[in-house]
C-alpha cells in the first residue's frame, strides 16, 4: 500500500509548482492560482498526517478552515482585481506602476 511519504511527495511537488507560479508569473490571477496550489499542498499534508497519525481529525478541521479562508480570500482578491480592471483595463502586475520610481 502507498505510504505517508508518497502523499508528502505529491504535496511537496504541488508546493514547489505553486512557488514557481508566484515567482515567475506576472499576471495577478495567475499568481493567485499559484497561491491556491500552495494552499492545496498544505491541506494535502494535513490530511495525510491525519490519516497516518491514527485518524487524527484535528487535521481535517484545519483543512476545512483553510478551504473556507481560501474562498473568502479569492472573493476579496477578485473584487480587487475587477476594481483595478475598471481603472486600468489591465491587470499585469508589472504594468501597474503608478507608484514605482
Amino acid at each position, binding site marked *: 500500500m502507498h505510504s505517508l511519504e508518497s502523499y508528502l511527495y505529491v504535496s511537496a511537488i504541488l508546493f514547489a*509548482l505553486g512557488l514557481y507560479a508566484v515567482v515567475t508569473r506576472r499576471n495577478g*490571477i*495567475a499568481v493567485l492560482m499559484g497561491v491556491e496550489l500552495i494552499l492545496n499542498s498544505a491541506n494535502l499534508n494535513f490530511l495525510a498526517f491525519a490519516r497516518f497519525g491514527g485518524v487524527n*481529525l484535528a487535521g481535517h*478541521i484545519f483543512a476545512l478552515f483553510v478551504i473556507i479562508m481560501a474562498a*473568502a480570500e479569492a472573493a476579496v482578491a477578485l473584487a480587487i482585481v475587477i476594481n483595478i480592471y475598471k481603472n486600468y483595463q489591465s491587470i*499585469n502586475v508589472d504594468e501597474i506602476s503608478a507608484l514605482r520610481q
Partner: protein
Amino acid sequence: MADAAFWLMALLTVASAVVVVHHDKLLYSAIALLFTFFGVAGLYIFLWADFLAAVQVVIYVGGILVLVIFGIMLTNKITTVNISHTSMQRGAGGLLVAFVLGSLGLMITKTPWLVQHAAEPDQTVATIGRLLMMDYLLPFEVASLLLLGALIGAATLSRREE
C-alpha cells in the same frame, strides 16, 4: 488496484498543476486547475477524508474556480492581447523551485513522522461535527465573523460609487 488508482490520481494532480503554472493562456491554466482540484479531492478519498473530499469539490471547484474564471472572463483582454504575460525569470524560478523541492524531499525522507495505526472509520462527518461544536467551537464562530467581513469588503470594493 488501489495502488494503480492512487498513482493515477497523483499523476493527474501533478501533471495538471504543471499545466497551471506553465501555460501561457490564462483560461487554459484555469481549466487545468480544475483537474488539479479534482485530483487532490481524489487523494483525499484515499486518505479516508470523505467529507473533506466533498468540501474540496464543492468549494474549490464550485466556488473558487468559478470566481477565478469569472475574473479571467471579465478581464479577458489580457488573454487575447497577452501583454508581457510570458514570464521573465523562468530560469531563476526553476532553480529556486529545484532547491526548495530538493530540501523538502530530503526532509520527507529523513524525518521520523508520527505514525500510528488505526482502523479506517466508516465516515468522518459525525466526528468532525462533534469537534466543531466542542473543541473548535470558537474558531467555528470566528470564521463566521471573518466571512461577514469578507462579504462586506468584497461588496464595498466592487460596488459602483455614485
